């Protein structure tokens, strides 16, 4: 008996070992091929950048020896960070920065560890250091003060335009445009379900899982809602908050609560796979964020908006390469390619979704349609004519800035990080404790 048991044990161990090897051998060959890919890429582009450098006349850092660093809050398991990591790799490949010259530091918390990571990257010779999480900002500023010759860039932050540091930069994108377009896809899906008699237009309620009651989130769900409302005027939306940018359990639970409360469609602004997978198991359509979740959710994923950071990286790192300065506070848009939508999943989306998105996109670019058109929504039953954002209280915003004029609310025109933070009619906040 004992012998048999030990034989079985040994066999399981051996199988486990080989299974482990097989799986990881796959990834290693994958990474090897990607590295060879980028090396060949770099050799082809290095020549172009060196000629570019030569015309500059000064002594700009050539692509071959420019080092850049990226600081990420989590790793590629977070859809948010994965989006940055992919964009960073793509931009470095385009710019001809070889893989050995860019460093991606993952799992860096929003504490002094962020300053340490930035300082270490500066020590390693990076001329450009980027951080991806809002809470990194204070530590990036601390590092920027200490390393005046290194350019620091930070996504989603608010302080660059008032801090007065020449080497500290913020960047964001008019993602509300992308959210709005994704909202149109949601509206079409609701309309399809209403037409099929699954529920009435009055019952068309969407659910939204947000992270915090922060302007970036509020601006995001408001534009998403307005997109859906442009198709189904009766639509309402419940919003719940998790109090974390990344909490898979809380996001899943939040989505399930919304589904149980009768929400017909879910979207989210939180960075894990929690909400999309909850939708997939409940069979509820989901409009995702940060990137496609179609692989995990083939039956319910409709479309996802995301910020493509590659244009910003190419712009800002390119400037450092040429020895030029770049914007202190940069806001990407549909035109710059910073606001992007993934492919529509035909299996879950309503027919004609792609066409509707394309048409609205053209109108947004042409300026004939505005996401925050004040005639399309009300606040406490009234149309807005002025608006003072709560962001004014943090000292990075002049409260006297006129924001509502020409018939629409000018989001992100005065600071790249969103500042719209009001609750419009039709949106119901289930909890606001975060």
């Amino acid at each position, binding site marked *: 008996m004992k012998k048999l048991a030990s034989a079985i044990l040994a066999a399981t161990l051996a199988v486990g070992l080989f299974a*482990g090897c097989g799986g990881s051998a796959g990834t290693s060959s994958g990474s090897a091929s990607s590295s060879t890919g980028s090396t060949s890429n770099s050799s082809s582009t290095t020549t172009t950048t060196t000629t570019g450098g030569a015309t500059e006349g000064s002594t700009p850092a050539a692509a071959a020896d420019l080092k850049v660093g990226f600081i990420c809050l989590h790793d590629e398991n977070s859809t948010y960070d994965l989006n940055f990591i992919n964009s960073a790799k793509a931009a470095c490949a385009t710019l001809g920065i070889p893989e050995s010259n860019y460093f991606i530091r993952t799992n860096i918390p929003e504490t002094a560890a962020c300053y340490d990571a930035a300082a270490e990257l500066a020590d390693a010779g990076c001329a450009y250091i980027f951080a991806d999480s809002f*809470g990194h900002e204070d*530590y990036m500023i601390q590092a920027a003060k200490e390393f005046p010759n290194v350019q620091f860039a930070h996504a989603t932050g608010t302080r660059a335009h008032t801090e007065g540091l020449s080497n500290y930069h913020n960047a964001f994108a008019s993602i509300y445009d992308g959210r709005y377009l994704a909202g149109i896809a949601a509206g079409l899906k609701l309309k399809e379900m209403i037409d099929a008699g699954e529920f009435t237009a009055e019952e068309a309620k969407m659910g939204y899982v947000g992270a915090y009651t*922060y302007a970036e989130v509020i601006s995001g769900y408001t534009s998403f809602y307005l997109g859906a409302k442009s198709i189904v005027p009766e639509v309402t939306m419940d919003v719940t908050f998790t109090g*974390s940018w990344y909490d898979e359990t809380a996001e899943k639970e939040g989505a399930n609560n919304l589904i149980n409360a009768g929400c017909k469609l879910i979207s989210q602004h939180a960075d894990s796979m929690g909400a999309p997978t909850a939708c997939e198991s409940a069979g509820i359509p989901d409009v995702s964020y940060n990137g496609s979740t179609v692989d995990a959710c083939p039956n319910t994923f409709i479309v996802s908006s995301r910020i493509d950071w590659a244009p910003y990286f190419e712009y800002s790192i390119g400037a450092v390469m040429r020895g030029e300065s770049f914007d202190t506070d940069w806001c990407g848009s549909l035109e710059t390619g910073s606001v992007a939508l993934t492919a529509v999943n035909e299996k879950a989306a309503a027919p004609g979704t792609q066409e509707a998105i394309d048409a609205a996109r053209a109108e947004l670019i042409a300026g004939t349609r505005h996401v925050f058109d004040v005639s399309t929504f009300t606040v406490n039953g009234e149309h807005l004519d002025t608006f003072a954002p709560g962001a004014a209280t*943090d000292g990075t915003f002049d409260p006297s800035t006129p924001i509502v004029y020409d018939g629409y609310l000018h989001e992100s025109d005065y600071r790249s990080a969103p500042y719209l933070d009001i609750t419009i009619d039709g949106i119901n906040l289930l909890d606001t404790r975060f």
Partner: protein
Amino acid sequence: MHNALFHISKRRELPWYSAWGIRGAAIVLALVVCAIVTALATGLNPLAVYGTMFQGAFGTTRRVWILLQNLAILLCISLAVTPAFKMRFWNIGAEGQVLIGGLATAACMILLGGKLPNGLLILIMLLAAVAAGAVWAMIPAIFKARWNTNETLFTLMMNYVATQLVAFFVIVWESPKGSGKIGIINQNTEAGWLPQLAGQKYLLNIVVVAVLTVAMYVYLNYTKHGYEISVVGESERTARYVGVKVGRVIIRTLCLSGAVCGIAGLLLVGGTDHTVTTSIADGRGFTAVMVSWLAKFNPIGMVFASFLIVFLGRGASEISTIYGLNHSFGDILTGIILFFIIGSEFFITYRLSFRKKEV
């Protein structure tokens, strides 16, 4: 009857050189296993990976400082839990005690910053942090001493209370509104920031913890209190029989335990991070339990144990950056190494005797 393949018997005290020989062998074995795993799983040269780990920990002067700073904080928390463990009081609430100490520090910095001279403010921060940590540890201690409640569960649950309190106050003091973070407190005035020694950011923390280490060593080994702690740890009944007031020793010791955790919170919030978040203790309240046990409650041994863990962590982070591997791979290596080291303690305490071949 079948004879067992081997049987296990307790060893008599091993001479120090054999004990360290076994430990050394365990480390070598661990490195060999890690090398095999690395080569099989990633196709990388294990020696290059080890080299990168060293680079990550010692590569530059800054890295050495960061290593020492992280070592200091982990060591500080390990020192804090040790008197309680030595007394066989399972205080796994260090995480919460550090958090609450950090929260008290942050509260002083936010509410009193700029209103008091800096020296006085720092003194108040110290008192607040120590008191907060001590109270947090004392609550379960009183319940244990009076009603013999289960301290493991009690201290563990106090962690969640502390985490939620911090989460609550982060929302109260958040900046900007809705963002769920406080950010660096008093970044422009630096009010309540602990002073830098010799222009080095982390030196003060390191010096404070070095002094604490020696003090704890003396306290545990050469004072009446320390003796009472080991007597209570050996047997409560004996302690009672020889006239030790067990309840009082438990409360007093936990008070000390919590106070040192409070100091760790102060060093983190006032000394380096200048903010408070729910993750500021970063699991070190639990890692400290392992450090304390690995070092068999000897403060000097804890210096090495904390060094090992911090070194592995820093090295793991570096290999994930350099080779683009997931962080988990570094954690796997750390796990293997710790497994062997903890396992080696088994072979130091026990002897395996294999069955002799029957002819």
